C-alpha cells in the first residue's frame, strides 16, 4: 500500500500556502524567515515525491542544492536581521524603512 502522488502534492501545496500566509501577515522578521524555510521545504517535498514516483534520482540531488541555498540564505538573512537590530532595536518589519527615500 502506497500513498498516491497527488496526496503529497496537496500536502506540499498546503505547506507552501501556509508559508505564504505567514510571510504576508507576520511582522516579526525572524518568523518571516522561518516561513521562507517552510516554503522551501514544501518545494523539496514536491521534488522528492516526483523523483521517487518517476524513478529519476535527479530530484534528490536538486533537493540537496536547495538545502545548501536555504542554509546560505538563512545565514545571510539572520546577519542582516542582527545588523538591523543593532541600528533600530526592533525586528518589526513595519518600522524598518531605511530603504525608503
Amino acid at each position: 500500500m502506497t500513498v498516491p502522488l497527488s496526496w503529497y502534492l496537496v500536502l506540499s501545496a498546503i505547506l507552501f500556502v501556509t508559508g505564504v500566509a505567514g510571510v504576508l501577515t507576520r511582522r516579526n522578521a525572524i518568523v518571516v524567515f522561518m516561513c521562507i524555510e517552510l516554503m522551501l521545504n514544501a518545494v523539496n517535498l514536491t521534488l522528492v515525491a516526483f523523483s521517487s514516483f518517476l524513478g529519476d534520482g535527479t530530484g534528490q540531488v536538486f533537493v540537496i542544492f536547495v538545502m545548501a541555498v536555504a542554509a546560505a540564505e538563512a545565514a545571510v538573512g539572520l546577519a542582516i536581521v542582527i545588523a538591523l537590530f543593532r541600528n533600530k532595536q526592533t525586528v518589526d518589519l513595519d518600522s524598518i524603512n531605511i530603504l525608503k527615500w
Partner: protein
Amino acid sequence: MAVTTAVLMILQRNPVMSAISLIGNFFALAALYLLLRAQFLAVLQIIVYTGAIMVLVVFVIMLLNLGDERGLAERPSLRSSVGTALAAGLLLELVAILFLRTGPGLPPAMHPSSGSQGTVEAVGTAMFGKFLFPFEITSLLLLVAIVGAVILAKKRL
C-alpha cells in the same frame, strides 16, 4: 501532522514557540522522505535543517532577546486579512491546477527502482558525476554567504 505544526507556527505569538513548531514540521517532513524511500535526504533534512538552520534561528532569537511579541502586537489590520485572502486564493489555484490538469496522468505507484535511488551511494554518484559543476558553484555560493554573514554581523558596518 506537518500541516498542524505549520499552522501552529504562523499562529504562535512567541517566536520561540514558532521555531519549535517549525522543528516539528521538519521532523514530519523527514518521516515523509523516508516513506518516499529517500533515506539519505531524510537524514540530511534532520541534520541540516533541525540541526544547523534552526539552531541558528533560535540563537538569533535568544541573542536579540525577543521574548514576547507584545511590542508588535498583531493588529487585525487590513494587510493581515488581505494576506490571508491572497494565500487562500493561491491554495485554491494550486489544487485546481492539480485536479483540472490535462495531459498524461500521474504515475499511480512508486517507481520500482526508487528503492535504490535514495541511498548515499546513488545520490553521491549523481552529485559528483553528472552534477559536478553545480556542486562546485554551490560551494562558491556557501563561501560568499559565509563572508557576507560575517561582514554584515560585524560590530561596525
